[in-house]
C-alpha cells in the first residue's frame, strides 16, 4: 500500500491518501500534506500537541483535519512529522502530533498550501483498504 500520492490538477494539486483503517488514512493524509510543503526528513520530533477537530460528516472531517494542520502552521509555524489518531468518529477526531517548528533556514521548503477543498472529494473503502481523494488549493 502506498500511503499517499499526488494526482494532476491544472491549477492546484490532488492528494490520494490510503490506510488499512480510517485512522491510518487520516494520519497518512497529514503525512501527504506535510510532504508537499517541506521535506519531512528535516523535521525534528521535538514538539508534541493534541488537536480535536469536528465536522458535519466524515468527508468534511478529512477537509477540516487538513485545514487544522494549515492553521497550526500559520499560528505556531508547526508541522507534524508524525500524527496518531487516538479517537475517531464520523464527526470528530482527536490526534496526537509530534513535529517541529518550520524554519526556512533549516528546512527544504517545497510550496505553500492555502487550503484543503471539497471539490471532487471522495472517501471510501474497498477490499479492506480505505482511500481518499482531495484537491488542495495552492
Amino acid at each position, binding site marked *: 500500500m502506498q500511503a499517499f500520492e*499526488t494526482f*494532476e*490538477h*491544472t*491549477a*492546484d*494539486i490532488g492528494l490520494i491518501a490510503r490506510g488499512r483503517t480510517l485512522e491510518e488514512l487520516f494520519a497518512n493524509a497529514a503525512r501527504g500534506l506535510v510532504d508537499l*510543503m*517541506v521535506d519531512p526528513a528535516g523535521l525534528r520530533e521535538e514538539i508534541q500537541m493534541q488537536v480535536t477537530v469536528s*465536522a*458535519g460528516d466524515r*468527508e*468534511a472531517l478529512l477537509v*477540516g483535519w487538513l*485545514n487544522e494542520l*494549515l*492553521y497550526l*502552521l*500559520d*499560528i505556531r*509555524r508547526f508541522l507534524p512529522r508524525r500524527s496518531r489518531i487516538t479517537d475517531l468518529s464520523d464527526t470528530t477526531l482527536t490526534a496526537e502530533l509530534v513535529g517541529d517548528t*518550520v*524554519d*526556512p533556514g533549516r*528546512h*527544504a*521548503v*517545497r*510550496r*505553500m498550501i*492555502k*487550503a484543503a*477543498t*471539497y*471539490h*471532487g*472529494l471522495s472517501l471510501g473503502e474497498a477490499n479492506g483498504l480505505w482511500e481518499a481523494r482531495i*484537491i488542495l*488549493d*495552492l
Partner: protein
Amino acid sequence: MSQETQVLVQRDAYRWEIPATYKPGMRVPGLIYADEPLVRQILEDQAVEQVANAATLPGVVRWAIAMPDIHWGYGFPIGGVAAMRLDDGVISPGAVGYDINCGVRLLATRLTDEEVRPRLAMLADRLFQNVPSGVGAHGRLRLTDAEILEVLRHGAAWAVRRGYGRSSDLGRIESAGTIPGAQPDQVGRKALSRGLDQLGTLGSGNHFLEIQRVEAIHDPRAARAFGLHHPGQVTVLMHCGSRGLGHQVCTDYLEVAGRSLSRYGIALPDRQLACVPIASPEGRAYLGAMGAAANFAFANRQVITHWVRESFEETLRQSAEAIGLDIVYDVAHNMAKIEEHAVEGRQVPVCVHRKGATRGFPAGHPDVPAEYQEVGHPVLVPGDMGRYSYVLVGTPVAMAETFGSTPHGAGRLRSRSAAKQLLRGVDLVDVLARRGILVRAASRELLAEEASEAYKDVAEVVRASDGAGLTRTVARLQPLAVIKG
C-alpha cells in the same frame, strides 16, 4: 465546427455558449470568452463543467461567464464570473475563493531601466529582505487584538493612517481600499489569530513582487492618464491577498454554508460551491466577514507598498517622492461585490462573484477615480515571470455583457508536476538571468512550477479579451527582477 468543441455553440469569433440544456439544473446558459485556440485548451480539463455548475446557482442572472484565462479550479472555475439577484440569489464563499481579495497593484516610477539596471541586483536583494515571503516567514508587524479589528474595518486607510503610505494612495485603490460594510465581528477567532503576524507578507505560490519596465505603449492617451509615459519607464507590480486570515474566513464560511444547504433547500453539483441566500443571516455574515478579509488584503498591499518605497529609497539614495512610486491602481480579482448593473433594461443591484476575474469599469462610471474618468480605471493582468504583463481598460461592452468584468492573468496551461517534469535539470534562475531577469525566490522547487512553461501566453488571453471588446490594451510591461515566495 470541430468535433471537440461540439458541446459549445459558437456565437462569434470570441463567444462560446454552453446551452442551458447541457446539464440538468442549469438555470442560465454559460458563456465563454475565448478564441478557437484558447477554447481547445479550455476543453482539455474540467473548466467547462465548472462553468455549467456555476450556472446552477440560485438567482444567477443572464449567464455564468468565463474569461479567456479560465481554467479548472475547485468548485467555481478560475476566470469565472456570476452575478446573483439580491432577493432570491445566493452568495458562495467557494465562488470567491480562499484568497479573498487576492489582487494586483501597480506602481509607476520616474526612473528609466538604464538608471536602475546598475543597482538592480541590490534592489532585488533589498526587496527580498524587506518584504517577507514564503512558507514560515515571520511578518515584520505584530498586530494587537484591537489593531487587527481596525485593519479589518478600515483596510488600506488604516495602513495610511499608521504611516504606511501617502493619503493620495487611497484614491488609486478599488473601493478606495476600504470595503464599506465590512464586519470584523463576523470574522472568527482562528482567522483573526492567523492574521496577527501576516500583515505585510507576500505569501507563496503564484504571488510575486516584480520590478518591471514599460515595454510598449498601445494607447498613449490612457497610458498618460495612468502615469505610464514611455518605454523603459520602471514600474513595480505586486500580486498577493489576504493570507491565512482570508483562507480561514473561506474555510469557516464554507462549513457554515455546507451545514445550511438543506435548510435553504439548495442542491448543488459540487460541495465546494456551498452557498447561502444573500438575504439570509449567514449570507449577510459572510458578506461582512469577506469585506473584512478584503480590507486585510488592501492593508497588506499598502504595507508592502510602503516597504517597496523604503527599499528604493535605501538602495537608490533618493526620496520615494522623487522616485515616484505612485500607485497606478490596485484591483481585486477574488471577490463578491454588490454593484448596480443593467438587467433587462433596468439598473438593479446584483452580487457579482469574480473568482480570477478583474473589475474593469469604463470611462464615465461613477466608481472610477476622478483622474481616470475619461479613460476608465486600469485593469492589471499579470503574465508569467519570464514574459510580460498587461495594463488594460474595461469597456462599455464589458459593462453590458460581463457585469464590468475582465480577465485577471495568464491562466495555467500545465499542472505543476508537468511543468517540473518539462524543466528537469534546467536552472531557471540562470536561464532568466541570461535574459536579463533577476530572480530571488524562497523556494527553488516552487520556481519550476511557476515558470513560463506552466502558463498560457497572457498575450493570447489579452488578444481574445480585446477581440471580444471587453478590454482595450494600454501598455505592456516586462519583468526586470522577480521576488517569489
